[in-house]
């Protein structure tokens, strides 16, 4: 009987620990998913960022890069690409910009969330500089052009001829510290 009790305790402890670990695993799926997306480009979000060594320019073909924007939920800003599309050689560094205007009577902060399609192309697109890296504050009634510098790797698979870069602009004013929310000055140095 004592043996049975011990055996039961052992099973309970082991399975209980497993259950707790699996609960943790549920949360671990979040970073794992990020890593997985980094490797496979699963969600079209994880592209390279930061500087890249000068790449050899592939002049044998061109790639069409399109820019689109969305203002999800109730984002009142005007937000659109300055150029709708450009035709580039893989390996060349290019600069473009998005135009944003805050038509409201309040200081607001926005965050652009990028996405690329086809998802497979994400890992070949490197953003050297992008407004999507930072929060974007704008005064009431103000507007600005937000730059983005990117390069498409010459290793881009041949079957991809069009890459679409999309930005969704979200209002994150509410998550700013209250002290900042009261400010009326444009704070591009706030970070």
């Amino acid at each position, binding site marked *: 009987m004592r043996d049975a009790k011990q055996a039961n305790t052992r099973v309970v402890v082991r399975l209980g620990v497993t259950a707790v670990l699996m609960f943790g695993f549920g949360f671990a799926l979040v970073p794992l998913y990020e890593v997985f997306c980094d490797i496979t480009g699963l*969600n*079209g*979000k994880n592209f390279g960022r930061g500087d890249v060594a000068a790449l050899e320019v592939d002049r044998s073909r061109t790639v*069409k890069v*399109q820019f*689109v924007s*969305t*203002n*999800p*939920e*109730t*984002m*009142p800003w005007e937000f659109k690409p300055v150029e*709708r*599309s450009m035709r580039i050689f893989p390996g060349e560094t290019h600069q473009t910009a998005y135009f944003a205007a805050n*038509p*409201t009577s309040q200081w607001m902060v926005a965050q652009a*969330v990028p*996405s*690329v*399609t*086809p998802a*497979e192309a994400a890992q070949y697109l490197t953003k050297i500089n992008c407004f999507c890296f930072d929060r974007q504050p704008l005064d009431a009634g103000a507007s600005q052009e937000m730059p983005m510098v990117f390069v498409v790797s010459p290793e881009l698979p041949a*079957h*991809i*001829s*069009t890459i*679409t870069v*999309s930005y*969704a602009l*979200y*209002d994150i004013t*509410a998550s700013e510290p209250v002290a900042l929310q009261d400010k009326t000055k444009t704070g591009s140095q706030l970070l």
Partner: protein
Amino acid sequence: MTKALLALGLSLAGSSAMADWQVNLNRGVTEISNAVFDLHMLIFWICVVIGVGVFGVMFYSIFMHRKSKGAQAAHFHENTTVEVVWTVIPFLILIGMAIPATGTLMDMYDTSEADVDIQVTGYQWKWRYQYLDEDIDFFSNMSTPREEIYNEAGKNPNYLLEVDNPLVIPAGKKVRFLITANDVIHSWWVPHFAVKKDAIPGFINESWVRVDEPGVYRGQCTELCGKDHGFMPVVVEVKPQAEYEAWVAAQKAKQAALADAASQSYSIDELIATGEGVYQRVCAACHAPNGGGVPGAFPAITGSAIATGPIADHINIVANGKSGTAMQAFKEQLSAVDLAAVVTYQRNRLGNAVGDFVNPSDIQNY
């Protein structure tokens, strides 16, 4: 009561006249949709054959090996050869299915350059179409009248599958759809194209179609997206190139006309008259046709602090929405005239009587 019965009769008559007994997929009108249909039929027949085989043996046993017929139970309970065979054969059948399936899948993932790119954005509960290379941008709302839904009028043949502004694409051209969403996940489906792609807020998906046959093709949202998930159809009109170009020109002319209309001044009565239509088409889904809202979910317009308070706040909330709620920013969805009209209507009808009004030109500043 008689009215209700009449309505029921009407709707039954309407439905039985229109209903058909379609039992299979649509073959569709694109190369891909045909390939999908053929694949579907192939798999279906394989399944039928497997089913007939398995059930055949089973029913043979049920009829022949029953106790009432004096059957004696045999004693076998394993046979390695048979067990290996019926593990290996299904495996081979599966490989036979996987090969054509992978081929079709690869065709669907064709990423060659398209002739027309259209951004498709799902909203609660409508679609927005933006043509990337033209200045065309419009919303597509279901146009089935409420009376038909509530059985107060007979249902028309395209009941729930009709919209005010269909998507128009040229025939014979590769059209690429960039699919995303504004609020929750939607899914854009046109059965005749075999195109179904989820519209995910913050992310962009793509799909494409090349339709040779002009015509009108209808589909629906296929991801539960809230209350009116069942009421956001997709209608695509495929036009020959020349007609498509004419349509593009007409759209541009229409947008110019709207801009012109926005600079005019209107009387309060004109605005209320226009506003009523806009309200029923755009606002009534949540705020109810009588302005009563849906308690607990959507606030009433009648007597609301916003609709009876300062007009600037009222315009602001209609134009820019309210974050964290289902109240969208209607600035992009409605013309300045419609915005002015609907605000004026809400302030002076639906049980409100504020008495002021706003002109389209004043809307521009919000």
